[in-house]
């Protein structure tokens, strides 16, 4: 810590490296807590013994039915869900930061380009058209819908082979509106709320479908995007000052924007298909994190990823345990908890110059 450069009231603001290890520890501790708490009241010792048996330290008696059930609960349901909430949260945080920088728009969020509307339409069509039941087909319908919208937005948003930010945003908003209208049409036309009710939960944002394959797909998409973004932090910093400045600093603005938009949009498509559209996280958390880290992407990106992961992990833990045995869509919790917290943060940072 560089003593003396910060006033006492702003010691926590900007530039200090404390957040990295703190957020990392917080994430690990939160994950441990989340894993030990759930609708089925399994003692922490039970959780530990399941994990121990899974890594081969202990053998489970094949006839101990309760132990096998506990094992299924912890290993096949709770652990993938905890991991998925971490990965989805981190992904939303990263994409939110990048979208806000690329579009130089504070209101940009991962769903700005209409990707979640496209995913919702795809999912509803799969469910209504009866192409199959269950999470696998819903997720694939959502992914296809998201990709179709992405291609349309990129085609509409570019002229003469060049992607124009304002044009892309307008195209995204327009296509998103079109998808919403079609979604309403499909739901009203089939006039069968029960048929679409199953995906209402997913539309509102839910991690209840967390499975190991979903975890693997999300982890792969997140790793690629995060690596690409971290390799481009200097270019992103330059772009934050505007296109001309970036170009003057030797940044290939056009190719950067293309590659960033496409990679983050693909990650968003994966996120939406495994979790629906979870509001607030990708929009507000980047702003909240910027208060602490400043605008530099080398710190902002990993901090936003970690903070969003911790936030979504707690939100999902609340969504599945607060009103047990009932569940809430996690998107409801993120907004209910996140918005007041953010308002508080706005007031607090108002005081600090």
């Amino acid at each position: 810590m560089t003593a003396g450069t910060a006033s006492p009231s702003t010691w926590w603001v900007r530039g200090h490296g404390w957040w990295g290890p703190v957020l990392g520890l917080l994430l690990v501790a939160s994950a441990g807590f989340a894993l030990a708490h759930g609708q089925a009241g399994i003692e922490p010792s039970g959780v530990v013994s399941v994990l121990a048996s899974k890594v081969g330290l202990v053998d489970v008696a094949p006839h101990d039915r309760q132990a096998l059930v506990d094992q299924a609960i912890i290993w096949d349901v709770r652990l993938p869900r905890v991991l998925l909430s971490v990965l989805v949260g981190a992904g939303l945080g990263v994409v939110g930061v990048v979208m806000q920088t690329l579009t130089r728009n504070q209101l940009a969020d991962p769903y700005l380009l209409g990707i979640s509307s496209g995913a919702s339409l795809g999912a509803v069509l799969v469910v209504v058209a009866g192409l199959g039941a269950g999470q696998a087909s819903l997720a694939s319908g959502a992914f296809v819908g998201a990709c179709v919208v992405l291609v349309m937005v990129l085609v509409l948003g570019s002229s003469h082979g060049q992607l124009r930010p304002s044009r892309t945003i307008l195209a995204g908003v327009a296509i998103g509106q079109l998808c919403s209208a079609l979604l309403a049409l499909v739901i009203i036309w089939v006039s069968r709320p029960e048929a679409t009710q199953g995906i209402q939960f997913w539309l509102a944002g839910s991690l209840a479908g967390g499975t190991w394959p979903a975890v693997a797909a999300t982890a792969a998409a997140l790793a690629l995007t995060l690596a690409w973004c971290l390799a481009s932090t200097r270019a992103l910093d330059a772009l934050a000052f505007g296109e001309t400045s970036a170009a003057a600093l030797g940044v290939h603005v056009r190719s950067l924007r293309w590659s960033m938009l496409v990679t983050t949009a693909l990650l968003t498509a994966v996120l939406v298909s495994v979790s629906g559209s979870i509001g607030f996280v990708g929009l507000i958390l980047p702003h909240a994190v910027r208060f602490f880290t400043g605008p530099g992407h080398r710190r902002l990106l990993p901090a936003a990823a970690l903070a969003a992961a911790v936030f979504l992990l707690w939100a999902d833990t609340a969504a599945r345990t607060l009103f047990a045995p009932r569940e809430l869509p996690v998107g409801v919790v993120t907004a209910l908890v996140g918005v007041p917290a953010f308002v508080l943060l706005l007031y607090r940072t108002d005081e600090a110059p």
Partner: protein
Amino acid sequence: MPGSSRCSLSGPTGGGRREGRRRLLTAAAVVVLLFAVAACGTSRPTVPAAAMASSAGTPSGAQVVSCGQAVTLAGGAPRVVTVNQAATEIMLSLGLAQHLVGTAYLDDDILPELASAYDGVPVLSPEYPSREALLATRPTLVYASYPSAFQPEVAGDRATLAAQGVQSYLSPAACPSRSRSEPLRLDDVWEEIHQVGTLFGVPARAETLVDEQRRAVDGARATTVPDDLDVLWWDSGSDVLTVGACCGAPGMILEAAGLANAFPRLTGGWAEVGWESVAAADPDLVVLVDADWHTAAAKRAVLERHPLGRSLRAVREGAVVVVPFSATTPGVRNAAAVVELVNSVARVVR
């Protein structure tokens, strides 16, 4: 979501989830099951022959109270429009087809024993009719099973209808004022049958129908089924399960069948619960609701695929039974559903 809050029997998230039920893919299978049940020697409540008599009955001028609103049919031949299947089936079961100037909104095939009477009634719409189409029949009474029928784009609210000289009757099971923690009982359904009988001056037919249903349910209850079976009533959903809660039709059918609900403390008719809670509840029996938007076969597939579905004791022991969705709308079908359920349970649980 458009069309939400259509129905007061709804679960906590989708207000209108009880609406728009459709023809079951397995209607044929259900019919086969019905015959199998009949062959077992258990009497199934049927519509009494007397109720099918052609005499229409005369409106008594008697007043009944429907969800806080007085209803009376005085003077002249009543002109009735039923806008939900359960309402239609109650009217037909009481032999009141002659009073129907229109019906609407079939979710499922009409009960076979009512089909010929039904065929003589004009169908205004496969779903809800528009307000104009409804009023064009010059009804004196609109009879609905769900409050959604009184939305502006359908019949309009009941007070407006009353001002236009149109009486309205809403099923007591679906009164908007009903508390979410007040259990629905078969008696509530039978009360509706009695009220309709009174309104149309055929109280004896209502009495006969209710008595027959009551005897059938009592008879089924005499079947030896272990006491205190905890039952998971799985209506829909795969990642998060929509299950029967305390106070709607699922709770009513379970209670009447002498079975315990695995989630008795959840208020309302239905609620969303997590798989962990299902595993922790460790039900003795699983009821799969068979609806064409989420079939029993799809639910069985989820049970096989989901790690916690596979590990449920009831699933491993084969204690899984199927109930058709149309039986879970409050109406003349519930008593038969109770009898069927008891018989299926007796087959899978020893």
